[in-house]
């Protein structure tokens, strides 16, 4: 089949955002633990079993039970000070952190959202283990409102909630799912926007604007992972797909692009189903155990599957679907790929289908045998799934149901964003039925006195804030925006406050432009910790190093060639030399190159500058060398003249 050209503009894409931003509070939302990373230094652990409850996943109960039997045992890691009995679900939650609540109320006021009269803490069931209790505590603070975005008039706000962050998934063993409790309970604001249409870059601008509004409050965390977007995407008024866990704006563009393509592809596949009049009864009307056919197969993939004595291979007849499973209406989107993802969610390795076989060591003969067994006609297709018999039995019914659903195009589901910007199936969408009241915490009345007080503290708008930064630090607009958008704004303010000899513009440009260009070369900027940055600029402030050295030290550390600033300075031989030494070195260069000066006169400065820089790079400011050289050459020419 011919690959259709993908025309983004002809599609009606609607995108709704849910932004989750960690708040920068001292303590967690429901206890007094600190909001800090444990960085792997856990000192205790315990094991829990979460039980699925009937209604959480709606009609997808079997998947929940499967998840439960597959990974029912969860191991939690804790660290004293960062988690207590509350996170361990061994003590009822304490009262809501007032400072977190105030921050969210401020956002509600800034977005003209209607604050509820009395806030009720709810439990949202989540049984993947990311919450020890089996639910996430969340409260609706306000509804409605709007966000002003350049290019759009106003974007509607749906709701603003205050909730607790989930535990952090750790790389885990086969035996247990493992989570760190340090992140559990950190306050998050969740802001959901009304769905909007627009080009990906316009939509990214909305996310950027909202992110900036939150950051301009200076009451939110700024590190990597402290902001996460969930994006709801629908194409041509189809079903809404929720994509979770988009962490960066660059990733968002890719996710929007991929998900639009994917949904477009699914619509095209559904059209084919329609054309071919595929009835539900066509799908999986015959299922045959074909394990015996492959007893002596030389296919390495099948051998691997059948190594386990409890494994089986099943073939499934799909009438009328010949050519459709491998059909690629748009680059990279195939029914076969979707199904592979689907069964992987259930712990199988993947699927084989008739459009791609013979391949993977499955021979022409094997294919013919299967076709005969299933009674396949030329218009029919088949699927092979293999693995542990118990798993196969669990996956079979949802799989067939899923294939039937392709008839309807896009299916409402929750997917997760991958780092490369695509999305993979994670679970069916959960409904409102998974919410029930948190009976351990009394409802919180929102006093009008409090709101009146908070109205004085509403964060500045983005534009006002940038203007304020420009004025305060004498930065240009571009640098003001860059430094504020970067993760280094707080440290920038800190360094500026202790620097007399370095201009804010210099600090800001090093922290933005230079770090960005270094990280473009795949260097790791996370190695530039706050302490390291402070130490580098402190060395500069005290005159120990030259301005040129700052970037050199950054590079040395980001390349992991030096572990500390001291080490970098030593290995680069950057200790600034004093004027006496400088004069000695320059005089020597002058003497060594006297013939050049005699020949070229003042124009010899270029050549001499080059030679000097080789010796003095990083130890003396370039302009100073230039200055001194110029004086010395002039004097030299002068002296020669009067000789």
């Amino acid at each position, binding site marked *: 089949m011919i690959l259709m050209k993908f025309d983004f503009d002809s599609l009606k894409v609607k995108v709704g955002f849910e932004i989750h931003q960690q708040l920068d509070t001292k303590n967690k939302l429901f206890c007094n633990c600190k909001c800090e990373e444990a960085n792997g230094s856990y000192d205790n652990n315990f094991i829990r079993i979460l039980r699925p409850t009937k209604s959480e996943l709606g009609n997808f109960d079997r998947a929940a039970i499967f998840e439960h039997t597959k990974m029912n045992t969860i191991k939690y890691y804790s660290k004293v000070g960062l988690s207590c009995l509350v996170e361990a679900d061994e003590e009822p939650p304490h009262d809501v952190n007032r400072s977190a609540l105030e921050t969210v109320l401020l956002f509600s006021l800034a977005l003209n959202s209607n604050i509820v009269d009395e806030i009720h803490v709810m439990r949202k069931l989540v049984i993947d283990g990311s919450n020890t209790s089996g639910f996430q505590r969340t409260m609706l603070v306000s509804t409605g409102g709007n966000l002003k975005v350049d290019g759009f008039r106003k974007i509607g706000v749906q709701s603003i909630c205050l909730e607790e962050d989930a535990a952090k998934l750790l790389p885990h063993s086969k035996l247990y799912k493992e989570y760190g409790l340090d992140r559990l309970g950190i306050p998050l604001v969740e802001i959901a926007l009304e769905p909007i249409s627009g080009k990906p870059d316009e939509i990214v601008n909305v996310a950027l604007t909202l992110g900036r509004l939150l950051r301009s409050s200076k009451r939110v965390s700024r590190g990597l992972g402290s902001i996460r977007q969930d994006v709801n995407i629908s194409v041509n008024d189809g079903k809404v797909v929720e994509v979770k866990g988009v962490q960066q704006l660059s990733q968002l563009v890719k996710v929007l692009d991929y998900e639009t393509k994917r949904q477009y592809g699914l619509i095209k596949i559904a059209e084919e189903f329609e054309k071919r009049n595929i009835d539900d009864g066509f799908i999986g009307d015959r299922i045959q155990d074909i394990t015996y056919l492959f007893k002596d197969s030389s296919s390495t993939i099948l051998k691997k599957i059948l190594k386990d004595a409890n494994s089986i291979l099943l073939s499934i007849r799909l009438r009328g679907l010949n050519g459709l499973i491998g059909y690629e209406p748009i680059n990279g989107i195939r029914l076969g790929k979707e199904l592979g993802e689907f069964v992987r969610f259930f712990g199988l390795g993947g699927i084989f289908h008739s459009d791609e076989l013979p391949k993977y060591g499955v021979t022409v003969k094997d294919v013919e045998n299967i076709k005969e067994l299933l009674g396949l006609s030329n218009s029919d297709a088949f699927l092979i799934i293999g693995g542990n018999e118990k798993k196969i039995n669990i996956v079979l019914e949802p799989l067939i149901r899923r294939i039937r659903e392709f008839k309807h195009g896009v299916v409402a589901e929750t997917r997760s964003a991958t780092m490369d910007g695509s999305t993979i199936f994670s679970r069916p969408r959960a409904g409102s039925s998974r919410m029930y009241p948190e009976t351990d915490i009394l409802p919180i*009345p929102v006093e009008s006195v409090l709101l009146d007080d908070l109205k004085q503290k509403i964060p500045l708008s983005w534009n006002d804030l940038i203007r304020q930064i420009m004025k305060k630090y004498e930065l240009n607009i571009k640098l003001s925006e860059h430094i504020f958008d970067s993760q280094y704004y707080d440290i920038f303010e800190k360094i500026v406050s202790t620097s007399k000899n370095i201009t804010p513009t210099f600090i800001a440009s090093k922290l933005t432009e230079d770090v960005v260009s270094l990280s473009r070369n795949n260097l790791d900027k996370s190695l530039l910790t706050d302490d390291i940055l402070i130490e580098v600029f402190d060395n500069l402030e005290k005159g120990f190093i030259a301005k040129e050295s700052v970037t050199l030290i950054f590079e040395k550390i980001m390349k992991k060639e030096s572990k500390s600033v001291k080490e970098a300075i030593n290995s680069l031989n950057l200790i600034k030399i004093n004027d006496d030494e400088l004069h000695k070195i320059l005089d020597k260069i002058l003497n060594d190159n006297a013939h050049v000066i005699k020949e070229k006169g003042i124009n010899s400065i270029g050549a001499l500058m080059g030679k000097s820089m080789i010796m003095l790079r990083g130890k003396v400011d370039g302009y100073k060398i230039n200055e001194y050289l110029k004086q010395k050459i002039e004097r030299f020419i002068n002296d020669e003249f009067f000789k």
Partner: protein
Amino acid sequence: MKKEATANLNNSDSGKDDYISRSKQLLNKYKVKIGDSVKLISNKGDYTGIIMPRYESFNDNYVVIKLNSGYNIGISIDNIINITSEKLSETSVNVSLNPVKTDEPHNGKFVLTKGINHDIKKPLLSSSLPKILLLTTGGTIASKIDYRTGGVTSILNASDLYSIFPEISNYASIYPEFLFNEYSENLYASHWSLLSERISYAVLHEQFDGIIVSHGTDTIHYTSSAMSFALQNLSIPVVLVGSQRSSDRPSSDAFTNLLGAIKFITKTNYAGIFVCMHHTSSDETIACHIGTRVRKNHTSKRNALQSLDHFPFALIYDSDIVCNTDLKRINTRNNISKNLISKTSFDDRVFLLKFYPGFDPSFLECFSNFKYRVIILEGTGLGHVNKNCFPYLEKLIDSGIVIFMTSQCIYGRVQMTVYDTGRDLLDLGVIPLSDMSSETAIVKAMWALSNSSNKKELVEIMRTDLSNELSNTSPLIS
């Protein structure tokens, strides 16, 4: 946590007790009630949702609605402009009320009729699985939540129980039976009588392989002590089970504790009164404690129940049970149910008095105004109180009150011969209770008071080990 601890059994359709005066009048005014789908217009905005019940302890100025998103919010009555019913009765949800405490005055006596499920008298169904009677008394083992409304209801039949805990059908046939529904702090000695009579009936006339009693954890150890004295020489195991996290939570410990009890009943050969709860914070190992040697030592942790001075009687692992039989009086399962000694009455004229530095001894004079016959004096250390108390104690003993000494140390044994103070107290006639816990001592004293004919007999009973409440040897436990 407390509010969800007990299920409310009244499925109200009126909600008349949930909204008080102001809010109730408002709902009446707009002719809407709890469970109705409504559109509510306030001067802040419009909301659509379902009217939810409100805890009686909350203040009266808000109406709670559940929005379509699932969130509950409260709307100030002062801000409400109008409420209209969205659709008529067909969509009106039958909202079960959130659990509320029952205010029924307790008159101290129960009649033994309402609990018994007479169907079980006839030979049980032929299933080869062990048969277990599950008596519910108000614990959170068997309750389920209505996710739409947040209300909690008790599970009263086996099919509901199996639908929540499908795995238990692999181990046993469970016969759930409602006995009463109380927060465990609201229990009286008369509840112990009712429970022990029901168990006695089941042992003598029904054919269960074991009995599980679901019980609130706050006083589970008092009840287990009470059962241990009221029902001696049991032919089958009776296991009390509690949970620290209610069973409507995915993280509830109810199921693992229940399963631990079922495993103990079906896979070991012991009879008597036991308590099953978590051994640690992990959902891994269940500890099975002797009914008289257990105490709630933590307000909220899963392993709040701990054996005192001895190892738990059994540790129940995933596929393995390890029993520790250092205690003398453990019976093995047998068919001779007629050996049961059932003495189910208690006399609550017993007072538990905790001594502390600064205690005013003249307080002891007030006992002359009360009916108390026994005082359990919880002394310091090895069993001491300030010497200023001596004359008052002497007066009380002279007046016929029996005074026993236990220690507030939780662990260890009362030994009053070591120091002068202890020896003087012994001379006054204060009777030491060795390593019996204060909680067990007060229960035993209530039972002994009711089942003895004179003071000498009472003291004799108190100082005789009947159910492992007294032990001669304290094992070394790290």
